[in-house]
């Protein structure tokens, strides 16, 4: 069976689900950030697969993937900076114990 668009989309959905589970169920804030990176990568795979199979000459999906990478890099930098600031003030990065803004 030849590899088609649906194979790539299913792979992307599986990776996104793994990242979703990690982001919802983990307590370590850095592991949550890593799960979010997996989800962004899954979206990138879907974008590039659509670009390859539906509009091969336009490359729009690849342009979107580049912008997703830019935003992911900014998100990782700011997220880790926030984790550092929280660790400095509270000595923990356990997401269940960071409840300053909870009511």
């Amino acid at each position, binding site marked *: 069976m*030849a*590899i088609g*668009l*649906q*194979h*790539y*989309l*299913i*792979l992307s*959905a599986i*990776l*996104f*689900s*793994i*990242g*979703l*589970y990690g982001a*919802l*169920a*983990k*307590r*370590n804030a*850095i*592991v949550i*950030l*890593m*799960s979010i*990176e*997996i989800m962004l*990568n899954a979206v*990138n*795979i879907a974008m*590039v*697969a659509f670009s*390859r*199979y*539906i509009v*091969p*000459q336009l*490359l*729009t999906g*690849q*342009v979107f*993937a*580049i912008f997703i990478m*830019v*935003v*992911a*890099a*900014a*998100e990782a*930098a*700011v997220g*880790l*900076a926030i*984790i*550092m*600031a929280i*660790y400095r003030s509270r000595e923990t990065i356990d*997401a269940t114990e960071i409840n300053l803004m909870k009511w």
Partner: protein
Amino acid sequence: MGLEIAFWLLAIVGIAAASAVVLLRNVFRAALCLILCFLAVAGIFITLSADFLAAVQVLIYVGAISILIILGIMLTREVQRGSPTNRLRVPAFLVAILFLGVVAFALVNTQWQIAGIPPQEPTTSALGFRLFGKDGFILPVEIAPILLLVAILGSIVLVREK
């Protein structure tokens, strides 16, 4: 034939590495598995004939973001405590499975309009024309460095000693 073998190999490696990231107890090993997952995704990009994106994936994700994450693990002493799950583990698993089921059902039952044209190769110059050329994406290209600048300034302000 080679494309099929490469796809299945990279897909299995990528899914196994991503599962290891969320299942391993050791945070540092999870970060190393995350790097393997990023490399597998770069290989997937090559099978999709997106050569520029594969190189960018290796440079940004494998080179920069994973180093940043490992630095974050090193600077917070959470390695000893491992990576436990919170009490929402079973609902989170159910939500993830439900999401996967719905999306897979929708994907399989949609009639995609596959264009029979072979893909463009190499993509680097074509991407440059799409980004900077006429009717291109020049406004997002101008906004992206502002976003990066704001992110750099924000992270410096956040981690600065008061």
